[in-house]
């Protein structure tokens, strides 16, 4: 049995490392991308994936029912709140003119906002 436990521990450690590496790639992407909206892609998606993988790794190491449920709760709240924060950043960036419209290929929202005023 101890062999199996060791395998689980090793797999958990590997998953934590993998998740952290994915988060790191996302952060590097954030530095490379030009504007706020593109950066919000890099800030949310690889992070969410990396976070889930890290949680899975931690779950493999903790292995008790209650802790697993708590990890599930953490994942749930992260997935619920991350997009909201990203949306608020994107929205306020758009409305305060932080977005370079010339670099966008086209923009359906711009027409609608200008129509209103």
């Amino acid at each position, binding site marked *: 049995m101890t062999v199996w436990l060791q395998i689980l521990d090793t797999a958990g450690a590997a998953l934590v490392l993998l998740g952290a590496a994915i988060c790191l790639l996302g952060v590097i*992407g954030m530095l490379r991308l030009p504007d706020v909206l593109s950066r919000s892609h890099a800030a949310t998606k690889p992070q969410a994936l990396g976070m889930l993988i890290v949680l899975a790794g931690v779950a493999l190491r903790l292995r008790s029912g209650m802790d697993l449920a708590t990890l599930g709760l953490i994942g749930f709240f992260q*997935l619920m709140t991350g997009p909201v924060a990203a949306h608020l950043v994107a929205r306020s960036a758009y409305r305060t003119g932080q977005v370079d419209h010339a670099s966008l290929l086209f923009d*359906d929202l711009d027409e609608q906002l200008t129509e209103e005023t």
Partner: protein
Amino acid sequence: MKRLVTFSFRNKDLPPFSAAFGARHRRVLDLPLIAWLTVIWVLLWSSLNWANLLTGAVVAVVVCLAFPLPKVDLGLRLHLWGILRLAGYLLYDMYTSGVKVTRQIHGRQPRRAAVIAVPLRCRSDLMLAAVAVTVSNVPDGSVVEVRRATATVFVHVLDAGDPAELEAARRSVWRLEELTVRAFGTRDEIERVAAPPPHAPRTGERPGDQEDRP
């Protein structure tokens, strides 16, 4: 004699699964909300025993009484099979989107991004919010703006140079919309979502133009 506690099955005016306190029903407690807060409390203490359960319930009731929410029926229904399907698709989508975005970010050639409007079929506020949250987790989409009046989400797409890519982004939004509403929506909304997606407005076309198409 006035009852001290009235449950919703005795009084149809109350929202489903709730209880009203006092003679004049000033305070209404939403029982599923209290159960959910208690579950979170127990999970935070990470051990299940009677003391935790009871203090959790007490804290939940006190929180609900201290910060009362408006008495509305949000239109939230839980469909177990729908939730499982949504979770499965979301996990798969998050995997592909993580990989895809990482590849796009680190690719050599410059990308042209764009903001596209995607009209939705569902109408209730809760469903719009839920769809916006799920859309943010899929491959090409980060929600810039949601227009409530026309139920339109505005999505920033990273790689817009390719028309097929744009079409794929729209389709994935609609697919997620259907999955989300089938997981959490009322029967009305599910029927609305079962209809084929509204005609995709091309660039420069106004999304309101095709609103009435079935």
